[in-house]
């Protein structure tokens, strides 16, 4: 018997003053999985997540969270869903441990607060008021508040934004522990390595719609057969390089310093490529065959211009 979806969004539309922030977005999250929602700033990630959290009422479309309507059934849903906002959410004059204890006291069977504090490395910050915490400590407190009530499902909006590498790792470990214990996780992120490392499913969102969905493996291998990628100083002579390779090979600089070779990728082509580079004293970095990084996928799908 298939497990029912933890989150089901069908053709969601949400407009702000006539502008559609979310424009016909659909996605499904399997219970017990980790889903990463990826997309550039303003793509509609936060609006989608906040609609699932019951903060916004859809203008059109259907949203079901744990089988319930997050707007109509908010009261029944709130104890079952943990929320980490993108920022804020804490009284500035309240101490970290005090705030976590408070949120715990609103739940029937909360986690052990000292244990959670220790696990997130917040021990030294427990008696510090929120406004005096570092950005990373504020993020971790916010994450702790999302899980302390032992929810079935958590929404984490950019959980690792502004974290140092150690704190990021602690957050990843916690997210993986959540999945291991059967909690469904939906997170938004800008970090490809985070999505690649954590997610069972990656949903790429742009202009309020889903433009790609799949496991990290599916997304990075799809359309990548017969291609080779490497990084090198920008502005290499791609026409000259193509001429040095076996016939029918094509070379593009997809973004400054990132090169893609299309063609019959075989040992011969690889040898010609490295010889051409060696003659010019160019070291090709991050050379991969038949596989894109999630960042390549993302840039190819959403374009590389700033917004």
């Amino acid at each position, binding site marked *: 018997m298939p497990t029912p979806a933890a989150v089901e969004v069908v053709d969601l539309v949400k407009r702000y003053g006539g502008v559609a922030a979310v424009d016909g977005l659909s996605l499904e999250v399997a219970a017990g999985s980790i889903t990463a929602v990826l997309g550039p700033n303003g793509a509609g990630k936060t609006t989608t997540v906040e609609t699932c959290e019951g*903060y916004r009422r859809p203008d059109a479309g259907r949203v079901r969270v744990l089988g319930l309507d997050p707007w109509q059934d908010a009261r029944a849903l709130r104890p079952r869903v943990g929320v980490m906002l993108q920022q804020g*959410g804490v*009284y500035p004059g*309240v101490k970290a441990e005090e705030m976590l204890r408070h949120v715990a006291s609103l*739940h029937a*069977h909360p986690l052990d607060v000292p244990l959670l504090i220790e696990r997130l490395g917040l021990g030294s910050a427990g008696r510090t008021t929120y406004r005096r915490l570092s950005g990373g400590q504020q993020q971790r407190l916010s994450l702790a508040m999302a899980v302390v009530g032992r929810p079935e499902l958590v929404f984490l909006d950019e959980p690792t934004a502004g974290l140092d590498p150690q704190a990021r790792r602690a957050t990843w470990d916690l997210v993986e522990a959540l999945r291991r214990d059967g909690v469904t996780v939906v997170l938004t992120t800008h970090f490809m390595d985070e999505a690649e490392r954590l997610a069972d499913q990656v949903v790429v969102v742009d202009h309020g719609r889903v433009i790609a969905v799949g496991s990290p493996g599916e997304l990075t291998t799809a359309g990548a057969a017969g291609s080779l990628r490497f990084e090198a100083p920008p502005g290499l002579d791609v026409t000259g390089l193509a001429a040095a390779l076996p016939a029918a090979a094509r070379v593009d600089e997809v973004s400054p310093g990132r090169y893609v070779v299309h063609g019959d990728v075989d040992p011969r082509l690889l040898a010609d490529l490295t010889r051409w580079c060696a003659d010019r004293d160019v070291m090709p970095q991050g050379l991969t065959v038949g596989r894109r990084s999630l960042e390549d996928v993302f840039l190819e799908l959403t374009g590389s211009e700033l917004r």
Partner: protein
Amino acid sequence: MTAETGMFAPRPGAAPLGRMLAAQTALEVRMVLRNGEQLLLTVVIPVLVLTVFGSVEVLDLGNRSARVDFLVPGVIALAVLSTAFTGLAIGTGFERRYGALKRLGATPLPRAALLAAKGLSVLVIEALQIVLLGTVALLLGWQPRGSWAAVLLLVLAGTAAFSSLALLMAGTLRAEATLAAANLVYLLLLVSGGIAVPLDRFPDGARPLLEALPAGALSEGLRVVLRDGDALPWWSVGVLALWAAVGGVLAARTFRWE
């Protein structure tokens, strides 16, 4: 450290409503008591008004005992104004700004319970203020008269009026605008709300208007009971109830949680 498997195994559930309400009220009270700026408004200024105007002949209010008997109802009204209006408006405005209200909206705590906790915390702080002001007043020779039940009813009605106006302001304006406006209103009502300056010192035309404002209605109503020892003036309760109703309806319609 690695936690044992199963630490995060889901076991969702809301705490009983009574426990949530108690926890939220206790947190609100702690936040007020810890906030130095707010204690200036809620404690220091009312005590200063009482002691300075009570001890020194600034306004022609009669002898010392008459001065204190005049001032106590006024500073009780000031205590209610400072906590139920200024403190509540500023606190709520910044909680909205920092997303604390939004985040609490995602917890099992119902919004009505959050508002109830705010109301209860205001009453707790007011009780502390009134005990403190009453003690200072007794030391200055205050002689309370009238019915305590009438005083309680007036304080409750005043709290309802000021709280609903505070939430109306905090739920619609930016936090900084609320801060400025709430302090300005505090200052204006301190002068014109019958708190330290008798309303009969104002021009005849202004008096009915000032008595129709919540501060004037509360201070004059308390004065009728506490100084004159007369029965509860229902017009005061009526004026306060009307402000509470109008403010409450508008606040409920316009309040934005984020």
